Structures are given as C-alpha cells and as structure tokens.
C-alpha cells in the first residue's frame, strides 16, 4: 500500500495524498508530531483533513498515519468532575504533560487507565442480558452512581461476572453471544458523530426547573426539551447558562464551552467545587462534566467539542439519568464550520456559512429527548439541550439563529435594553416563548398549585397591557390615564422588578424553587386583585400604591427557602392593609 503523505497545508486544513482506503470522518495522525485530525473530504487518493491542533511547522512530504477509526470518545467511570478539551483530552493531564500552555501532539487518553473503581455486580452468571442492560455499578461521586451497561450490539448469557476493585480496562464480565464471547470492561468507545441508540422517544411532560423565575414560571423548558438563548454580547447569555448549570434539577450537567472565554471556564472550575446543589447539598462539580475549547484553542477542535459533549451526555442518559447539555456558544461552532468550509472552497450559503448549516444544527438538537433507554429494565432517561447563540450585533436574522429557532421549542430572547438597565436575566418577556406550556400543564397543576397556570396567564396579560399603556403614557402623559390603567402599570412594574428581576450574585436570590415562585407571584397578583376592588370602590389611588406592605413585596425574593413561613405573615399583612 502506498504511504499517505501531506500534499498541502493551509491553516487547519491539510490535504494528504495516497489515502486510498481511508473512510470519511476517520481519525488520522498528521506528521511526525502526530497531530490529531479527521478526514472531511475524499477525492480519489487525496483526503482533506481538518487538524485539531496548530499546524505551524508542518510541511508537504511528511507522513500521515491512518487509524481507520472514526473520532470517538471514551465512556466510563472518571468522566464526572473532569474538564476536557474539544477532543476529550483532560486538561489537567495536559497541564501535567506540557505545562500552563497547551503544546501540540500530546496524546492522552480521555479516561484514567490506572485508577481503580469499586465495581458492584448487579447481575449473576447464567442470566441473559442484552445491549443496554445494567450489569453493575460504580459509585463515581456521591451524586452519580455510574451504571455499567452491556455495550450496544452485545447480547447473550453472562458466563462470568466479578466484583471488586478494577480499572476501566480490566474485564469485569464475559457475555457468551451466539457467535462469540464478549469481554466486558467498564469502558466503552463511541463515535461522536453518531447518536447512541435508544428504544423509543416520547413527548416530554416534566419541567426542568432552573431556579430562574422568568424561565420556570413564564418560559419553562421540559426535561428532554430544547431551548436556545440568543443575544448580543453583554446581555447575559453566559451568566444565564451558568445559573442553569448550577441550579437546574438535571442529575448530570454537561457544559460545553465552545469558542468562549478562558476566564469563564476558570470561573466554572473554581466555583463548582464550592457551590452546593440545593437538593442534595453536595458540590455541584460532582454531577458536572465540562468540555472547554476556548476561542484561542484550535478552531477544528471547537467544531468537534459540541459532539464530544453531546455523546458524553447521551451515555449518562442511557443510564437512566436526566441530563442537561449547555452549549455556549453554538455560533462559534457554526463559525468553525464556516471556516473549514471556506478552506475547502465549498460554495457558500447565507453569510458565508455552508449550505448544510441548518441540517447540522437540526441534527444536533434532535439528539435531545425523553427516551426509553436500551435494556430490559425499562429505564427512562432525558436529555435536554440548551444552546446559546451569539448573533452578530444581536441581529436575530442571523442564519444560525434562524436555523436554531426552526428546531428548538423554547426561545429565551435576550434584550440589550434590559441589560443596560441591569435588569437580569435580560430575557425579554414579550419576545420569548415556550412551546412546552401544554405539555407541562398537568405536572404543574399536580405538583405546584391548581391556580399557578391561571396566575401566570394573568401576569403575562398585565405585562402585555403595560407595554401598550406605556406607549399611550409616552404620548399623553401618565396623569391622563385612568386609575385602573395606572394600577396595571404599577403592578406590571412590580412583576418586572420584584419577580422577573433576579440577581445571580445574591446568595438567596440566585435560586428560587417553584413553590416559592408560586407564592411570590400569588402575593403580587393578590395585591392587584384587592387594589382593583378598592379603586372601583373609589379609594384614593395614592393611598393604595403607598401602602407599606408594598415594600415587603419588593423584598420577597430575599426570603430564604428555609423561611417560607414569612410568606404567610406577608399574606396576612396584605389582607389587613386592605381591610383598613
């Protein structure tokens, strides 16, 4: 066989000759430095390779090594709490090898090979198992029981299963199939561009609560749903994503920092070990996997990072967990696609993006869902995806935004004006939407309160009325509005400032449970109901809006979850105020 050799180098694109027999999306090693790359185009014997590392110093004539395998990730105990680059190299191990700055050609495995895990067997010899069945588990962190599953494609009878301390490469069980005996280890490999198999998909019906009032109450996302959060820079995309990563009630979080800031990754890394999960009291890092390919790291690896993240997430979903993937930002991923497409001299579509942009985006979001997992136990898992989009100039007609909006069900539209007034989260309530309201109705009725949905609709109506009333007020002055309309303005302002506004950096305000959200909204709407009656009775408007209880309402958000008793007192005070 002819040896593969480099014919041309242009930035991250390398063209190699003599690649007969190579397959699309096979991994290759480029030059003596063994840079990692992937085949993205084949023409006769020539292969176009996108290289995941800096190509300076590489030239024609150097060898290219074909591996014959697609780009894959390693799945097994050791994933949680880890921080990876775009092609699943653990960054702390890289640091040990090459220091504070990332050097090239460093080949480190995704999972620790030597660490011993305690494997607890859950199945016995002679039992029949099929792909996806759980044969045992490892307590990876106090929050995550890592289920060891029979890999896809393997069926048969367990001939042997052990319990004890093993590393991920040691055989823990043997399964005798129809044609061969499979040795099962705790590690699986899976190609990142191929979705992991499932049994069936369902419509999602349970909310993924995030502790963010504007999201949970007004624009909820379901477990297994998709959402996007577009906005100009400085509008708070990343802070919102971090807040969701911190407080959402998913069991596993995969955070993909794709082409974003290095300091933000450092922030996640430094704050997650200290932050406690509000439900379990354990450090958040114990349920988090981070994939970080910052903007100055090689652009091709940025393209891969999204797939690395989602494949890891699917693996945890297969164990029966509810998993949330946060991708920040998908625009940077799309730009990486555009850059490679440009270098391949493909015909550009909109804004220079390749014509296949929207199908790639749709494919990505379609990997979300509430599913029945493989395996005979009848497990269900959920994978939710939330993607940040960074359109140029905040312009929503950007092709990436438009392609994303066509596939996602929830849209959290960030607004520059709100951000400038430091109203955070700067999610514009008139612009945003959630298509999960109907799916979640039953759950909210049964688990929060019967009237919650009604309150929400009423509050939304007030906010919409406010925007049209404000237009009138700007033209004719606020004094010329009727008292009833002015009351609407006052209450809408209260909804905005006392409910929707949420300070991510305040120790209490950063997280609000659904129960507390309901109580807060209820008090605000109760104030509206009582005031409206009084105004109809002819009570002075100034007296009502000057009631001292209103200041208490404005501080409802600072009542700790543990002191929910205070709500009762304030509700009573509210009732008393109006009796007088």
């Amino acid at each position, binding site marked *: 066989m002819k040896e593969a050799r480099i014919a*041309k*180098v*242009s*930035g991250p694109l390398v*063209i190699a000759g003599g690649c007969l027999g190579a397959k699309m999306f096979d991994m290759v090693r480029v030059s003596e430095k063994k840079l990692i790359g992937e085949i993205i185009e084949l023409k006769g014997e020539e292969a176009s390779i996108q290289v995941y590392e*800096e*190509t*300076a110093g*590489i*030239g*024609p*004539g150097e060898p290219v090594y074909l591996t014959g395998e697609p780009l894959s990730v390693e799945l097994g105990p050791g994933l949680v709490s880890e*921080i990876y680059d775009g092609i699943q190299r653990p*960054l*702390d191990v*890289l*640091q040990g090898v*090459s*220091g*504070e*700055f*990332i050097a090239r050609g460093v080949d480190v495995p995704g999972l620790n090979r030597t660490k011993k895990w305690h494997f607890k067997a859950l199945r016995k010899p002679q039992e029949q198992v099929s792909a996806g069945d759980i044969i045992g588990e490892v307590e990876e962190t106090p929050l995550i029981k890592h289920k060891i599953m029979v890999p896809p494609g393997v069926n048969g009878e367990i001939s042997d299963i052990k319990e004890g301390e093993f590393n991920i490469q040691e055989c823990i069980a043997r399964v005798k199939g129809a044609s061969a005996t499979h040795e099962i280890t705790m590690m699986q490999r899976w190609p990142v561009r191929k979705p992991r198999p499932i049994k069936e998909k369902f419509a999602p019906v349970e909310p993924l609560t995030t502790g963010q009032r504007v999201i949970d109450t007004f624009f909820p996302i379901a477990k297994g749903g998709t959402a996007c959060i577009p906005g*100009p*820079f*400085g509008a708070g995309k990343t802070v919102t994503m971090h807040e969701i990563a911190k407080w959402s009630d998913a069991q596993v979080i995969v955070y993909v920092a794709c*082409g974003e*800031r*290095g*300091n933000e*990754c*450092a*922030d996640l*890394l430094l704050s997650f070990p200290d932050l406690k999960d509000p439900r379990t009291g354990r450090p958040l890092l114990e349920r988090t996997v981070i994939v*970080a390919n910052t*903007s*100055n790291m090689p*652009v091709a690896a940025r393209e891969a990072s999204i797939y690395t993240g989602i494949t890891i997430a699917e693996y945890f979903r297969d164990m029966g967990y509810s998993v949330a993937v946060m991708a920040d930002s998908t625009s*940077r991923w799309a730009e990486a696609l*555009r*850059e490679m497409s*440009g270098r391949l001299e493909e015909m550009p579509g909109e*804004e*220079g993006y390749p014509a296949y942009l929207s199908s790639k985006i749709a494919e990505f979001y379609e990997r979300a869902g509430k599913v029945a997992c493989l395996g005979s136990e009848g497990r269900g898992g959920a994978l939710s995806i939330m993607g940040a989009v960074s359109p*140029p*100039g905040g312009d929503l007609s950007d092709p990436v935004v438009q392609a994303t909006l066509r596939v996602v069900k929830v849209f959290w539209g960030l607004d*520059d004006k709100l*951000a*400038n*007034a*430091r109203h955070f989260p700067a999610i514009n309530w008139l612009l945003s939407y959630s298509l999960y309201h109907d799916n979640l109705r039953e759950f909210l009725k049964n688990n929060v309160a019967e009237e919650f949905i009604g309150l929400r609709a009423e509050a939304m109506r007030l906010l919409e009325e406010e925007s049209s009333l404000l237009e009138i007020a*700007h*033209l004719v002055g606020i*004094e010329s509005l009727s008292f009833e309309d002015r009351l609407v303005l006052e209450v809408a302002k209260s909804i905005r400032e*006392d409910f929707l506004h949420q300070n991510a*950096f305040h120790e209490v305000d950063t997280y609000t449970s659904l129960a507390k959200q309901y109580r807060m909204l209820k008090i605000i709407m109760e104030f509206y109901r009582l005031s409206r009656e009084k105004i109809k009775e002819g009570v002075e408007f100034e007296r009502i809006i000057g009631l001292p209880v*209103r*200041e208490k309402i*404005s*501080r409802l958000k*600072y009542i700790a979850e543990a002191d929910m008793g205070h709500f009762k007192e304030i509700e009573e005070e509210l009732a008393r105020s109006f009796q007088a």
Partner: protein
Amino acid sequence: MLKEYLTVSSVAGPLVVVEKTTEVKYAELAEVRFSDGSLRRGKVLEVSRDKALVQMFEGTIGMDVSTAKVRFLGRTQELGVSPDLVGRVFDGAGRPRDNGPQIIAAKRMDINGNPINPSSRAYPSEFIQTGISTIDGMNPLVRGQKLPLFSAAGLPHARLTAQIARQAKVAGTKEGFAVVFGAMGITFEEADFFMRDFRETGAIERSVLFVNLANDPAIERISTPRLALTCAEYLAFDLDMHVLVILIDMTFYCESLREISAARKEIPGRRGYPGYLYTDLATLYERAGRIKGKAGSITLLPVLTMPEDDKTHPIPDLTGYITEGQIIVSRELHRKGIYPPVDVLPSLSRLKDKGIGRDKTREDHSDVLNQLFACYAKGKEARELAVILGEAALSELDKLYLAFADAFENTFVRQKESEDRSITDTLDIGWELLNSIPHAELKRVREEYLDKYYRKKGQ
C-alpha cells in the same frame, strides 16, 4: 546552508508565490532579498508540494519577479526577549526605534504563543483602581481581565487610556503596572502624545513600546500586537511582573487582516472582513490572564474606534464577544463637555463580581453599583419623557430621577484628567447621589447597607 530560491512566479499585494520549493513548512518565516539589496521578511501562508505562498510583513514595493531571492528560515516568527526590553521603543516589526542598541536575547519566543490551558488559569479577582469613577465604581477592572475601550473618531480615548496607564494600581498598594504599549496605524501625533506622557510621568521606565504608525507598512500591523503580547507574556510569567497591555487601534489591525484576506481571494464574511476574524482576534485577546502559581498577570486594554459609532460593526461586535466587557466612550457626553465621557449604561465589566466587595473594595460596592445603574437608567428614561411631554408633565418621582441623572453626570462621571479618585471616594459620591432618592425605591441595596450608609453623611 539554506537554499535560496530564485523562483518567485507572482507578486500580488503583500502575497508572493514561490515555485519549485521543497521542505517548506507551514507558518515558516521567509527572507526575501530584493534587487536593491534590501532584506524583507514574510511568513508562509499556504504550502503545497512544490509551491509556497508567502505573506510579506513589510510590503512588496520595489520587488521584481526575476531577481528576488527567497530563503526559508526553518523557524516561525520570534521575538528575542530579555529584561533589557523594558524602557525601550520598537517599531511594529520589533526593531529598535529609539536609536538604542539591539536587544541581546536571553530567550527567543514564538510570537503566536500557545493557548493558556483553561484549567491552569487563575480567576482574576484583584481589583485595579484606575482612579476613574465610571470604571472603578461602575465597571471595575481586575488584574488579568481584558477590557476594551470602544471609542470613535474625535473622542478623547487617547487621553483616557493614558490616564488609566498612569493611575492604575492594585487597591491599597502603591504598586504600579509595567505597561506594554502596542500601537497599530495611529498617527504620529497620537503616538507622540503617549510617548510624551510616558516620559513626563516617568512611566517609560517601566514600559515597552511597539509603534507602527499610520505611514508604516500596513502588513506589519499583523505582527505588532503579537510582539507586544509575547513581550507581555515574558514580563508577566517569566519575570513575575504585573503587565498592562494597551493595544491601540484594533480597527487598523482588522483592516490589515482584511487586506490580506482580500489579496488571498478568500470568501469574505460581514463587511468584507474574513470569516476567521473572531478566531484571529481571540488568539490575541485570550492571551490576557493569570496563571495559577505565577505571580505576574496580563491585563489587556485594547482600544478601537467604531466606524460610524456603530457598536454592531464586526470589529466592536466580535471584540465584545471575546473580551470581558467593554467601556464605551460616548459622543453625547463628550459634546456636553464631560470628561471622561464614559457611558456607563452600555459599558460592562464581566469580572467585577469577584473583584469587589468586603476586603477588596467595600462591602456595599456591588449593591451601590446596581442601584446607581438602575437609577441612572430611570433618570435617562425620564429625560426622554421630558423631551416629549415637557418637564411639568413628569411625576414627582420622575423629576427626582431626572435630577439624579444630571447630578450623576456632573459629579460622578465628570472628573479632572489629573484626578485620581480612591474607590472609597467614588462610593461616597455614589451614596450622596442616592440620598436624593426615597428609601422605598432603593430595591437593589441590601437593608443592612441602607442602614449603614443611606442619608448618613453630614448628620
């Protein structure tokens, strides 16, 4: 012995094609000897089996196809560094510009650098006091942050930048910063202003300047910020210094990048800028930061002029997506005669939260900052209303906010070019302003700080 090629086949703009090459590597440095004996440098942009595309750093004026001799040096562009760099002035390609001697390199560093491993980064958290209220009070800068100044033609960004460079220190210390100054395409007068300012204040003793003027080759500008940042990395991470890097003006840098992209006939992105502008800018800006276990830091202050004052132009837009906030210089305030004309509402510092508060600035800083933002935003809304309806039609509360906005601009924003306000002074001015607003309106401030500071002074 290096091979010398006489096989230049075409020259177009800054790009040169050399034929029949062997053993040439991507991104390798090339030297071209012109027929008049002068020597210019370039870098390999693309290489195939028998052809190399070279981008010249200093232009191709006077080059001819038949006699130009090209040698490939087998290494990438490097900067020779040593402690002697400090106090010197270089041109945009790293040659001495101050008639001083050549630097004897203690070490040679690739000017493209390597990305900092995200898990080796220390999170920036040390407050830098610039003495400017709009920055310290409202958009605080911390060591290791990258915070650009978005300005536009005719605005005093140079004076503001020089004031920051002069006054910046970590709160509570007298310790100053080493300044690495990278000028791309600015005029002689602007460059002279900085150099004079640095000399007069003695700042030159702890500065390194890389200056590419408007009439220097545009292509050289591609290397200038990389030289400056490489120098900064050496000072910060080898010599443990705290470095403030000023890059002015990024707009010219991006235009040079566009020039090369156009010469290569690449598919243009928005406004003709190349599709990889984001990635390219990120490889510059992301070099700022702090590293665990190292004493030094790089704080980056790029300055750019927004074409037509347009924040959505690709250069400010992509910059804003990479940097940790932005300081916006406003024409409106400048017209009102307010210096420094920083518009605080659209300005932002993303790293402020870990750098302020108890033990760093003052415990009430974060709340005061949020409250001032909210009040000033309301004041500006009231001002707009007053324009439409007349001031008389405003409610009492709106009138208070209107007065607040005026007072805010006149006492908080406005300060002298020589005025170095401490952070305590800045916060006290903030409280004086907030005293004019009723208690019930101050929703962003915690009760305990209201008790401690609200309407307390002067009693």
